[in-house]
């Protein structure tokens, strides 16, 4: 992946205007820090950090740490928690695939959000664990809204929070503020919000891109007719003007929904404006595969290229969606994973989880192999948060939530460290990540999940 060279995003509209006006294009270039990112990083390795979220479904194989029932039906015991603590820990069986990348892990943590009565599903692992892992908050007070079955957060998920935070991108966001990718297309049911893990706010799911071809086209296809692109950018000004009269006539949620739409449209316009700023050297057009590891390999290759040349600095990667029904028949598992968990088939869940970790390892392989001219890899610059929705899926326990922190965040994260705190607050993970990315975070967590502490030993 060393062929990838970062190219600064240049407004094509600016370039074309410059060209038309006969002025030197170089005068219209964006700020120095964007142009000379590598040099800037040489001075401060933690500048331009990358955040990624790797999500897999249905936790880890259950063990006694999740509860007595789970312990009684756990033929292999705890195959997740590393047997040793601190630096250079000995990896557990399931963490072995990730060991080459010296990931750090936190174990024993759990969500601390209050469970109101009636709990409206607030205590359910899928919902409670998922929301706290992703947002640090509980699901909306109405709970797991039934029968609408919409799973709705109260605030942005961590990836979207970071992508929208002024201390992360400042005034020079990448062409894509974030990329939300997915691998398995299995979904628990069709009620809508379950097939997304990223949200920008309540009722605002960000659907994942599952198709390598679609991703490739978004990232690397530069239209041949750049003038047409410029017209599309101008046209959006007219669309904005057309919407103007409507804004004042709406109220409440309608107004917010329209505002969100128009904010997105501005983002789309900005991206179109930068759309010639793709990587200098473009990867080959991708194939596809229905196998989750093979598709991860393909998607991660494109993602790593995009991260390395600055097309984005935030991603979410949904290997499988919450409560996934994905059938891992390649592993000899006859039923969907959610069912297999509830049926108590520990060995199957172990092999599936191991397979999901192999996919995680493939993602990290790509991030480690994408290196800038100064020799800094994407993984060196990144903090990749590996998370699932609860501790385990047999009984939905939210004890012992799995947490992986991969990458060095430009030196802000200690690699290869095992932090353990039984019953500790899961939001310490969020505090750690946000501080590692240079975002001032006196406290994080909501509705009982608040904490001011980070994971000592992992935050450098």
């Amino acid at each position: 992946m060393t062929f990838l060279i970062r190219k600064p995003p240049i407004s094509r509209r600016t370039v074309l205007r410059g060209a038309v006006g006969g002025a030197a294009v170089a005068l219209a270039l964006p700020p120095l820090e964007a142009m000379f990112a590598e040099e800037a990083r040489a001075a401060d390795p933690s500048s331009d950090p990358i955040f990624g979220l790797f999500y897999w479904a249905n936790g880890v194989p259950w063990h006694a740490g999740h509860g007595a029932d789970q312990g009684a039906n756990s033929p292999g015991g705890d195959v997740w928690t590393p047997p040793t603590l601190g630096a250079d820990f000995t990896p557990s069986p399931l963490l072995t695939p990730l060991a080459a990348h010296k990931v750090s892990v936190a174990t024993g943590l759990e969500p601390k959000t209050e469970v109101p009565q009636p709990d409206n599903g607030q205590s359910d692992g899928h919902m409670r664990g998922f929301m706290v892992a992703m947002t640090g908050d509980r699901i909306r007070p109405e709970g797991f809204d039934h029968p609408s079955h919409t799973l709705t957060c109260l605030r942005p998920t961590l990836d979207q929070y970071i992508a929208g935070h002024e201390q992360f991108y400042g005034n020079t966001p990448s062409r894509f503020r974030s990329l939300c990718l997915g691998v398995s297309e299995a979904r628990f049911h069709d009620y809508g919000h379950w097939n997304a893990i990223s949200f920008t706010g309540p009722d605002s799911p960000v659907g994942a891109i599952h198709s390598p071809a679609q991703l490739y086209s978004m990232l690397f296809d530069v239209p041949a007719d750049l003038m047409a692109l410029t017209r599309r950018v101008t046209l959006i000004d007219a669309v904005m003007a057309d919407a103007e009269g409507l804004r004042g006539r709406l109220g409440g949620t309608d107004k917010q929904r329209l505002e969100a739409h128009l904010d997105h449209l501005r983002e789309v316009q900005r991206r179109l404006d930068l759309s010639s700023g793709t990587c200098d050297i473009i990867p080959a057009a991708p194939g596809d595969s229905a196998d989750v590891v093979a598709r991860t390999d393909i998607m991660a290759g494109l993602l790593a290229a995009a991260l390395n040349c600055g097309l984005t600095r935030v991603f979410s990667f949904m290997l499988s969606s919450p409560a996934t029904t994905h059938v891992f028949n390649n592993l000899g598992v006859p039923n969907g994973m959610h069912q297999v968990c509830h049926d108590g088939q520990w060995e199957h869940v172990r092999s599936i989880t191991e397979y999901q970790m192999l996919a995680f390892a493939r993602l990290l392989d790509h991030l480690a192999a994408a290196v800038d001219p100064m020799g800094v890899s994407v993984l060196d610059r990144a903090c990749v948060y590996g998370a699932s929705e609860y501790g385990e899926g047999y009984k939905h326990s939210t004890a012992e939530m799995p947490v992986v922190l991969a990458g060095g965040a430009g030196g802000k994260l200690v690699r290869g460290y095992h932090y353990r705190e039984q019953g500790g607050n899961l939001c310490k993970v969020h505090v750690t990540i946000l501080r590692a990315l240079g975002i001032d975070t006196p406290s994080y967590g909501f509705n009982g999940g608040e904490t001011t502490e980070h994971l000592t030993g992992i935050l450098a």
Partner: protein
Amino acid sequence: MVRFPRLGIAGALLVLASACYDDNSARDSDQPASSSGESAGTDATVGSGDPTDTGGSDSDSGDSPEAFEPAEPVLPRLTASQYRNAIAHLLGPGLPGLPLEPDTNPYLFYNIGATSTFISELGVQQYEEAADALARAVFTDQARREALVGCVPLSPGDGCVQNFLASFGRRAYRRPLTGAEQARWTDVATQLAEGDAWRGLQFAVAGVLQSPHFLYRVELGEPDPNDPTRLRFTGWEMATRLSFLLWNGPPDDVLLDAAGSGDLHTEAGLVAEAERLLEDPRARVALQEFFAQYLDLARLDHVARDPARWPMFSPTMTASMRTEVQLLVDDLIHRSDSDIRQLFSTRHTFVNAELAALYDIEAEGASPITFVPVDLPVDGPRAGILTLGAFLTMNAHETITSPTNRGKYVRERVLCQVIPPPPGDVDTDLGDDEDMDAQTVREKLEQHQKDPVCAGCHSIIDPPGFLFEHFDSVGGYRTLDNGYPVDASGNLDGIPLDGARDLAEALKTDPRVGRCIVNQLYRHATGRLPALSEFPALDALEQRFIKADHRFKQLLLDLVVSEAFRTVSEETDA
């Protein structure tokens, strides 16, 4: 914040929430399952156990206000299918299908997702890309663009361009363009033309297709000359409401003309246009969409059965099952125009060869692809869609039945009751519990009901679900479950019944069935749950439905002239 407090008003739903945790009320009362929408708070409410909430009222609208007041407006974004219908209407058929953000269907209906979900950035990007690609496809094709525009522009912004933009704009925005809008798009057509008037039009069209006035249904009303306390929808808005309800797409020029001449402010004008729309093939498709959502048929697409275990379950079986329901719905609405509630009790149905085999009936002329009308045997086990393949299969597990899922469907879909989800810490696994000596699914469920935490709800859900125990996981008739004789006795709210035919009979006279259809249609038509202040209108609608012998087309006509469909309140915090 989000509008869910409004969505959360249970409307004319019967809320079971409280009753679930009340051992007695559910079985012993004549109106066991009812509690008013207001007192139950939200659909999402898990039984609070407040005894004052339960079973007291004898009508679901007991707490509703006496006089109707319209609800606040909503802002539906076109669903993907509505967008595609609109594109076909605006630009003609045969254009490439482009990816759009998937819709959500809270409370079963895509129209509710359309009023509550926020679009994602990718969704907006897809609109931009679709608009660009569609406009390019049309305007780089000489025959196509001339057919669309109807004249040849000689210079950017000339009379041809302006006339086209006025008529195209009226179709796209479903109302005439304002002067400022006309000027804006003419400007775009001029400035982005770069000397090529066609290219200018291409960009103007691409812009219109990205405008919120096209992508959203803006229906905010105007002062009602007959009633200063409220607003009525404008004629243009009524045209849009009619066509999206009856065609799942935009109004045609005739309907817009009717709007422009004021016809849609009169009951006669509305009925005339509604009847015209109902005669159009688009209405058949749109009504099928409604019933597919109301009956939750999309779940059939995800049904899988192991062919080794179920040899009869061919790869085409779920499609056959779905077609059967569609034909039955179509027959009741259009061909016979009769009591739509017969959906749950009629012995009439339509089968192809594999369904005939599944039901073990004669069906002359049936083939794998030919469906023929049949009457199910008088003395047979089947009558109504609750005894047909679609319902029985999608509410069963792969190898065993699910009286719980089937009972829940009866409660939620057919009777419009609300069942709260199981408490989070409860094990709902019905697998092989070694401590159990239960043999049949029924016995296993009855064991679980011994737990008082479960029994509250399951004593309401399961008894009607047991009535279907003679039908296996693919809808075949059986007399044995796991080698033991099937017991298909059960009850509906304390009335003992034996088998699904008994239930079909009971549903024939159950007033909740018709009321539920009214409610489901209202949710679909408005894209939201009804507000409490709308209950009187819903009650009136229900009365008209009864008077019309529950004919569905008449219900649609009654709905479109109902004040609830024609009026709106001010947007409060605009």
